[in-house]
C-alpha cells in the first residue's frame, strides 16, 4: 500500500513560490490561508536555502493526538485529513504541529478562528470524492483522479517531491548520490520518525556522508 509523503530538496528550491500558487489556485484557498508556503533561511546571505513547507502528513501526527473533538483521521494511503463538520476551530492542532500547517481563516466574526484548514495532499476530505461539497470545504481531490499533489507536480525544479514514500525517497537518494551533497532532508525525521523509533529511515541517511537534519 502506498504511503504518501513529501520531500523538499533544499538544494533545488529556488523560492519561486510556484507550489504555493499552484495550491492556492487548485483549491481556491481563501485569502489569508496558506496551505503551503516557502521558507528561506539566511535570506539574502550567499548560500541561502529555501524549503517548501506544508502539512507533512506525519506518521504519528501530533494534531491528531491533541484534537479535543477528534476530527482528524488517516486514510489508507497515510494522508492525514480532518472533518470540518466536526472541527471547532480551537487551534490546539496549530500549537501542536511542528510545521505550522494548520491554518485558520482570519475573517471570522469577533476574531473567531473558524474551521481549521490545511494541506490535504490533494486528497479532499470525507465528502464524496470529487463532489462540489468536497471541493468547497477541502479543495480538489487529485488523488482520486489518479494524480499527485499539484504543488509537487507543478514544481519547476522538482525540489518538492510528493507521492509514495518509497518512490520519492528513491528519487531523492539517487539525486544525493549523483551530486554528492545536499542530503539534508528537512522535516523527514520529525514527520515520519527516525530509524531508532522503528519508522522508515530518512532516504539519504544510509547512503550519504552528510548529516541528516530533522
Amino acid at each position, binding site marked *: 500500500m502506498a504511503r504518501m509523503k513529501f520531500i523538499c530538496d533544499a538544494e533545488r528550491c529556488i523560492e519561486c513560490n510556484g507550489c504555493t500558487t499552484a495550491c492556492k489556485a487548485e483549491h481556491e484557498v481563501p485569502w489569508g490561508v496558506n496551505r503551503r508556503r516557502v521558507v528561506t533561511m539566511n535570506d539574502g546571505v550567499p548560500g541561502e536555502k529555501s524549503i517548501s513547507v506544508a502539512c507533512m502528513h506525519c506518521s504519528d501526527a501530533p494534531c491528531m493526538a491533541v484534537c479535543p473533538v477528534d476530527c482528524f483521521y488517516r486514510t489508507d494511503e497515510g494522508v492525514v485529513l480532518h472533518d470540518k463538520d466536526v472541527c471547532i476551530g480551537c487551534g490546539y492542532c496549530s500549537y501542536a504541529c511542528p510545521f505550522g500547517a494548520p491554518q485558520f481563516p482570519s475573517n471570522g466574526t469577533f476574531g473567531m478562528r473558524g474551521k481549521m484548514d490545511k494541506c490535504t495532499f490533494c486528497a479532499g476530505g470525507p465528502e464524496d470524492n470529487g463532489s462540489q461539497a468536497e471541493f468547497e470545504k477541502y479543495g480538489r481531490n487529485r488523488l482520486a483522479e489518479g494524480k499527485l499533489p499539484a504543488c509537487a507536480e507543478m514544481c519547476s525544479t522538482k525540489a518538492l517531491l510528493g507521492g509514495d514514500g518509497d*518512490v520519492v525517497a528513491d528519487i531523492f537518494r539517487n539525486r544525493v548520490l549523483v551530486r554528492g551533497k545536499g542530503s539534508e532532508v528537512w522535516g523527514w525525521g520529525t514527520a515520519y520518525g527516525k530509524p531508532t523509533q522503528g519508522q522508515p529511515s530518512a532516504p539519504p541517511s544510509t547512503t550519504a556522508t552528510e548529516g541528516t537534519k530533522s
Partner: protein
Amino acid sequence: MTRAAWSLVVVAAAVLLPACGEHSQGEPARLKKADAKASSGAVAADKAYMANGWTAGDDTSWQNQIRGRAQGQNEYARIISATPAATAAAPIGATPAKAP
C-alpha cells in the same frame, strides 16, 4: 405536602437531574464521516479531470498509476535513463558519477 417536603424535592431535583442533560463525552469520534478510498475514483467529478491509464475502483491499478506518476518527478528516469542504475550500484562514499 408540607412546605419543607416541597423544598426538599426541589433541592433534590436540582442536584440530581442536571446530569440528564449532559451530552456523552464520547460522541465526537462517531461524528466523523467515513471517507471513500482514493482508488475508488472521483465519482462525482467531471470525467475530463480524471487521469488516463488506470481504472477507478481497482486498487492495484490506482497504485501503479500513482507510482508511475511519482516517477514523472524523477528527471534521471525521464531524461538520463542510464544514470540511476549506474549510481545505485555505486558503493557508499564513492565519488558520485557526474551526469552527462
